[in-house]
């Protein structure tokens, strides 16, 4: 078992324990590298020491902005294995959580109508719900590729949780669950989202790589952040700047 208790379910599975250990190892390595170069800097003194110190500063900054080094995410992700061609195959588990200042009842009701999801899920462009409860989903990957599949609700506890799964024939079979847990007094609701994809094996399979590559714990977390922004403030913020002459430096 993990030493701490996140609210997402995936952390309980042995598979995720591996990914947690891998994450811990990566974080330890990064920290060691930056502390190491700092210590070299202190030992050496003088100009070369300053240069080493500067390097560790740059590393820390790069890491913190996600430029150059992979940022240490807190979401549990088990990446699918990569084939020789670098394509992911196999199971891919994603989870993320957020606290939203609305009641579990409100959040459940909004999510339960899947046609709302395109408002805040970045890859989902359209969800149509049929009278029998089944739904037809359309997604668009960053590379422009479009995917469609049908899904059905597999479990439904009003104000608490909703689980759904894609039906046979989906290009990327998957199932998901969202849970709405009352937070501490005055804080609203803790929302935990878990998604589990099966990325098809085989070089010749029709695996939609643009879509699969867009799946990440960080992307899922952004989607949940957009859900929170939508439910708390009624809109998703944008700082989009009007076009300006863009010549010069950036820092």
């Amino acid at each position: 078992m993990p030493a701490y208790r996140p609210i997402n379910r995936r952390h309980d599975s042995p598979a995720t324990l591996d990914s947690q250990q891998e994450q811990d190892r990566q974080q330890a390595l990064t920290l060691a590298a930056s502390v190491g170069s700092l210590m070299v800097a202190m030992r050496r003194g003088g100009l070369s020491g300053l240069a080493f110190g500067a390097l560790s500063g740059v590393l820390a900054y790069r890491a913190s902005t996600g430029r150059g080094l992979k940022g240490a995410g807190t979401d549990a992700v088990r990446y699918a294995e990569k084939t020789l061609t670098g394509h992911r195959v196999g199971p891919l588990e994603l989870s993320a959580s957020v606290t939203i200042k609305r009641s579990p009842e409100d959040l459940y009701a909004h999510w339960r109508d899947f046609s709302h999801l395109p408002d805040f899920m970045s890859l989902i462009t359209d969800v149509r719900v049929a009278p029998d409860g089944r739904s037809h989903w359309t997604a668009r990957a960053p590379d422009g590729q479009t995917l469609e599949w049908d899904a059905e609700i597999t479990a439904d506890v009003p104000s608490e949780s909703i689980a759904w799964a894609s039906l046979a024939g989906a290009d990327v079979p998957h199932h998901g669950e969202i849970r709405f847990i009352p937070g501490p007094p005055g804080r609203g609701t803790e929302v935990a989202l878990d998604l589990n994809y099966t990325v098809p094996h085989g070089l010749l399979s029709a695996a939609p790589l643009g879509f699969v590559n867009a799946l990440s714990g960080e992307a899922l977390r952004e989607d949940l952040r957009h859900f929170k922004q939508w439910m708390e403030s009624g809109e998703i913020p944008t700082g989009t700047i009007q076009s300006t002459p863009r010549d010069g430096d950036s820092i």
Partner: protein
Amino acid sequence: MKAVCWHGVQDMRVDTVDDPKILNPRDAIIRVTSTAICGSDLHLYGGFMPGMQAGDIVGHEFMGEVVELGSGVTNLSVGQRVVVPFTIACGQCFFCDSGYHSLCDNSNPNAAVAEKMWGQSPAGLFGYTHILGGYAGGQAEYVRVPYADVGPMVVPDSVSDEQALFLTDIFPTGYQAIAQCDMQPGDVVAVWGCGPVGQFAIASAKMLGAGRVIAIDTVAERLLMAEQQHGVETLDARQTGNTLQIVEALRDMTAGRGPDICVDAVGLEAHGVGLEYWYDNIKQSLMMETARPIVLRQAIMACRKAGTVSIPGVYGGLADKIPVGALMNKALTIKTGQTHVQHYLKPLMDHVERGDIDPSFVITHRTRLDDAPEAYRMFQAKRDNCVKVVMQP
């Protein structure tokens, strides 16, 4: 429209850019009538804040006339004169609800980047890096204002642009620096930095009933402004000497106690004397630290036991040699944060309307938006005793 755009270190230009548009239901478009250059804009100008991209429109202190409203804004009408908080806040999240508007959960579109730097993301700000949202700023003819139903405040006719403008940032920022300190009768307040924020911290300390206020700076004209405007004691840091000598001077001025409240109204570009300043300057230029925390060190070292160190000055990244031993062993309290402008706007506007304070006292220069590049040069060099520049588009 015309706008002041950042194009690199010490490279501000007045560019012709597209007019802003309504993008979200709660947006408004404001025609700017007055805008100011802030000391924190100098951190962008000098290249000390990461997350700037060439062409970014700067400016977070601005006011003007409502010219267009999104469908979700029903409490304002076109033609009204408003002053706009520099902190962008949704008004509906846990933090906005608790009066911590600068910590709004929802207003930073680039929250994920801020989380990597700081663990959690504060609110978005106008014209202040992509880490804080990449919002176009207000040193322009027009500006898009998000959450216009909770941010902008209508300015009474009896209050002029120059009296209202500093409610956007520096007046509430100076005020919060004192108001958050649980000041007790007789408390001695020391304020490092007699720039605009320091001047308003000093004014606010007097307004809130401080026993004594000691103003500290390295620029004689700014100390003179503090003395003449607020009748407070002053300490010339350059003449006094290094950190140890300043701490000793403050101890001597308070019969050994040290100031009860120490305010760092300087932030990451502090100036000092001697080896310590040289050390921080080199490290900063090599990116080994992103701040020169000279004032913060002095404030911690000088502060009375169980006193409060308040930090309205802006920091972005890392600082070192912070006397954490003094902090711990003297049981100090640290109060800091960007300003919860929306929280203070109404009471401070009332003070201005009643004539308790005329915030226009800090203005030393008035110019046109077209002259912004020269105004930045002058302000950075503190030439011509420049404390605050107001520009009109």
